[in-house]
């Protein structure tokens, strides 16, 4: 009898995990409005993937690798793609300090205008490390929601920040899986 109860409990847990995959905290309704400005914190290559995803989701978006406060005109949401790329920073003629300064100015202006921040981290384990983690620590706490590739959060670093700051987080297996939560996040 005890064995049957344990088996049933185990099955129930599996069922819950299948029905509610990965989502630690789900938003009940769309959190964001269009149009959205897509930029990166760290000049990573994932920013273009997010642009393709936004296009596929039918979202009205603008991409700017070096967005500044003046780009916020008419913008209702900032999508910030987190992760430092040495190659990307070099190509943009930026170092980490200058990149942080750029994002700080952008986010400060956004806060003044009540433009919310959606953060994404799609680079996985390869887009973690001291530089990326510094950017994640600096800007993720300001987000209203985060969508992250599971492989970049194996150590719970990203979900830990989200938990501490009460930020909705969706973890996905693959880049293509971002499409559904991204669509659902926007009106």
């Amino acid at each position, binding site marked *: 009898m005890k064995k049957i109860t344990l088996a049933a409990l185990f099955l129930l847990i599996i069922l819950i995990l299948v029905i509610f995959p990965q989502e630690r905290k789900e938003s009940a309704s769309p959190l964001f409005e269009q149009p959205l400005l897509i930029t990166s914190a760290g000049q990573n*290559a*994932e920013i*273009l*993937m997010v642009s*393709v995803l936004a296009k*596929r989701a039918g979202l009205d978006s603008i991409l700017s690798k070096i967005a500044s406060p003046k780009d916020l005109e008419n913008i209702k949401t900032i999508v910030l793609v987190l992760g430092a*790329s040495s*190659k990307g920073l070099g*190509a943009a003629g930026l170092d980490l300090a200058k990149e942080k300064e750029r994002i700080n100015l952008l986010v400060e202006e956004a806060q003044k205008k009540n433009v919310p921040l959606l953060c994404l981290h799609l*680079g*996985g384990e*390869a887009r973690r490390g001291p530089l990326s983690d510094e950017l994640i620590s600096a800007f993720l706490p300001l987000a209203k929601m985060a969508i992250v590739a599971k*492989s970049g959060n194996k150590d719970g670093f990203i979900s830990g920040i989200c938990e501490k700051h009460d930020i909705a987080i969706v973890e996905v297996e*693959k*880049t*293509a899986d971002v499409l559904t939560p991204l669509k659902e996040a926007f009106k």
Partner: protein
Amino acid sequence: MVVAAHPLAAEAGLEMLKKGGNAIDAAVTTAFALNASEPFASGIGGGGFMVIYLASENRVTVVDFREKAPSGVPQEIFNEEGRIKPDGLAVAVPGALAGWVYSLKKYGTKSLVDVTQEAIKIAENGFAVSQTFSRINKDEYEKLIMNAGEGTCYLNEGFPYEPGDLFRNPELASTLKLIVSKGIDEFYKGEIAQKVVKAVNEKGGVMNLEDLALYEPVEHPPLKGIYKDYTLFSLPPPSSGGVHIIQLLNIIENWPVKKWGRNSPPYIHHFCEALRFVFADRSRYLGDPDFISIPVEELISKKYAKQIVSQIKPDSLLDSYPFGRFDERENDNGNTSHICVIDKEGNIVSLTHSINHFFGSGIVPEKTGFLLNNIMYDFSDDLSSPNALGPYKRPLSSMSPLIMFKKERPYLILGSPGGTRIFSSLTQIIINVIDFDMSLDEAIEAPRFFTYSSQGKARSISLESRFPENTIETLKNMGHSIRIREAYDKYFGGAQGILILKDKEVILGGADSRRDGHGAGY
């Protein structure tokens, strides 16, 4: 034995050896298979060099299938940031297919059908993407999405491949079948040529059908150097690799490196100072020998090495690193994935080939499945440079496939990708094996460093992060600025090698974990 940058390619080459093919058959089989299994680094859209040792003739020869600039190339293609825009202008006329088939016909024993079968199978059946493939695919996403488009097989439904995803390339398989059935003229003069020209020009390039039709590989004698009891054969220009490996070994021969210790501060300091002199010569003299005179013999002379040694200080940097000055001579004719193969007869191939940057230009001719190179980046943006671009010119390369002999018998087959780091990395591996008695695998895996000079001034030393802190501090105290890179950074290349001991009784393969290298033997 076959060593290559992907296990499937190495196994394909090994199968060819087992079927009775010789080293040239196996090398060409492996090259085709790499196009299918490591398409981001080499392929029929690129070019390269092959050093061949023919055991029965005891002769070494070089087949040069470096890409050439299109005839209509404008005088200036680099923008202020040193980039070539639009991307089509970065594509040079591919030479790989012509070079492989030339070598196969002249020195191989098998047919084009035989050497392409494994590549076709790999392209059709696919394979699980590695961490290396996935990471490079993500890094080069922008180029691929812009030039190859969302529907390309080089992206997984428009996004980069994740490790473990299945990568298939049926269009490459069809292209290879077409080449087999119609011959390589299909690539250089037929339907594929038309698709190449269309794809390049749609992206702002200037290639025409005649550029492709006129392409021919070149065969010439190797460059020879001596280091202690060893004789080295590698490439003459238009690759700078052979010249600079010999230069570096000639310089290092004057120093007690064994006493200093491997990767000790004095060793790294002296090696880096030598590199800075070598780079001064590279930018002053090296280019396409069909268009300029290059003082190769002077550059690789022991006398010139001693001149450089006499200028290097033991514990500090120089203010400037001048290039060598040589007397004028009359009638001067001076003239990136690696594969190593040795067959049972003792024939050897050391082949380095490339499409330049990872995923090349990102341009894929319509429904062909292969990537075109962006080798035009290897030209200098300085119009007064010996490596300035021009119609039909071959850009300067750093590739350095080499074969070393110890007392008349083959001892070491070696090569690597890695851009201008190639000759530095290969020299470090040679020293590791010969002077520090390391096994080939240890020598390849050992931490690497690199530096260069630009306009006579020292640049910082890049070091893998495995170097001890006190070594780094000592180098800083000598005046070097330091840049720390990853522990096993593909910036320093991904070497492949074969070490032959006791007259072919023991053959050891070495493949670099900085890439997906693999050795296969029987």
